């Protein structure tokens, strides 16, 4: 029941986060995974103490509302997510704020659309070979020809940088792919 006294209202905090994943993630899958992680870590009583709500999620960045006494718990819940609907993912906490407005202004840049495009280029080196899936700044995700190369870490793609591919140069500043 809604309290009429503002002083009795629970205080909230807003966690801004970034999702790094090997594929596209929708907000419904994300909140399901976060709630399942919270339930398995802290149980029903823990969920009741700290009701999480996904305020927004767009272009891999989102805002999550939590109770102001359970911030560390919420961080642990987000860090304990290793995959979302079978897609390998990691949730990175960017920052914490007291209002939606300040959290958005501080931690969610408006022009931050991450573009994941199929590159179509191939890499043939002595040690590794495969197709480039996407590039982001200096980072290169590679679909390896031999699946056993990613066996130990359960990932689909190998993570390389343009420096590994001999295209990196001293003045590379992260704005070009350097390949």
């Amino acid at each position, binding site marked *: 029941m809604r309290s009429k006294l503002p002083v009795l209202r629970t205080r909230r905090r807003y966690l801004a986060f970034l999702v*790094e*994943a*090997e594929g596209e993630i929708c907000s419904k899958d994300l909140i399901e995974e976060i709630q399942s992680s919270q339930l*398995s*870590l802290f149980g029903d009583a823990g969920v009741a103490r700290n009701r999480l709500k996904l305020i927004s999620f767009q272009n891999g960045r989102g805002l999550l509302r939590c109770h102001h006494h359970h911030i*560390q*718990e919420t*961080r*642990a819940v*987000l*860090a*304990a*997510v*290793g995959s979302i609907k079978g897609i*390998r*993912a*990691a949730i*990175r*906490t960017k920052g914490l704020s007291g209002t939606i407005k300040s959290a958005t202004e501080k931690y969610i840049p408006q022009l931050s659309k991450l573009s994941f495009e199929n590159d179509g280029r191939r890499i043939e080196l002595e*040690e*590794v070979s495969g197709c480039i899936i996407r590039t982001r700044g*200096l*980072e*290169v995700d590679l679909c390896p020809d031999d699946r056993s*190369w*990613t066996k*130990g*870490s359960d*990932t689909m*793609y*190998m*993570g*390389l*940088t343009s*420096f*590994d591919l001999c295209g*990196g140069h*001293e003045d*590379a500043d992260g704005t070009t792919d350097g390949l």
Partner: protein
Amino acid sequence: MSFCEILKAFPEGSDSASRLALAAKRMGYQGIMICNEAPDRIFRPKAIGHVKGINVIFGAEVCASNPRALRSRVSSLRPRFPFLAFSGYSEEMARAACEDPNMDLMLLRPELRRPLGIVSAKAAKQNQVAIGFDISPLVRWRGSARSRWLETVSRSLELSRKFDLAMAITIGARSHLDLRSPRDLAALAEVAGFEPNEADAALELPGKLVKLNQRNWLGPGVELL
């Protein structure tokens, strides 16, 4: 605060060393330590020189099937690497690792169902071997397996506090998707039973050990300046 994380790079993980360094730098680490079982076979280690603003150290994880092989492997690796770690997969091997003063870190493997033994803890204290807690089961496992592991960790933690052992935390990352920021790691460690100040000290420990090892020690307590 200078946080440092222990990682595995390609071919034992799926990311190259420079990619791990870039990801770790973005997350707020001041250093990373790459500890592969075969440290000579790391993919493009020279590419790391291009990643500025993060200290990358190449250590080694000792791999041995019996205590004797462990000792000989440690003595051969010690002069070449500033940091040596060992994953204790059985109680006997964990004890052997704790009894070797040349060892820096004994990692308690999550698959090891038993907690740290009293004899190992005493040996670790005597030989100044740090105890490493791999907290990756908090991410990788769910349900009863994870609750069993949490119980084992809390027992090992009690013993480590009792003997005042140096503790380290790692998430055993093999790719950038396994990596977590230092604050997230501390939050996970608190779930596993660490106190906040213990978690911070544990995250700083590998860097401190490497700094100590890189100094020129002539013997115990004697340094060439």
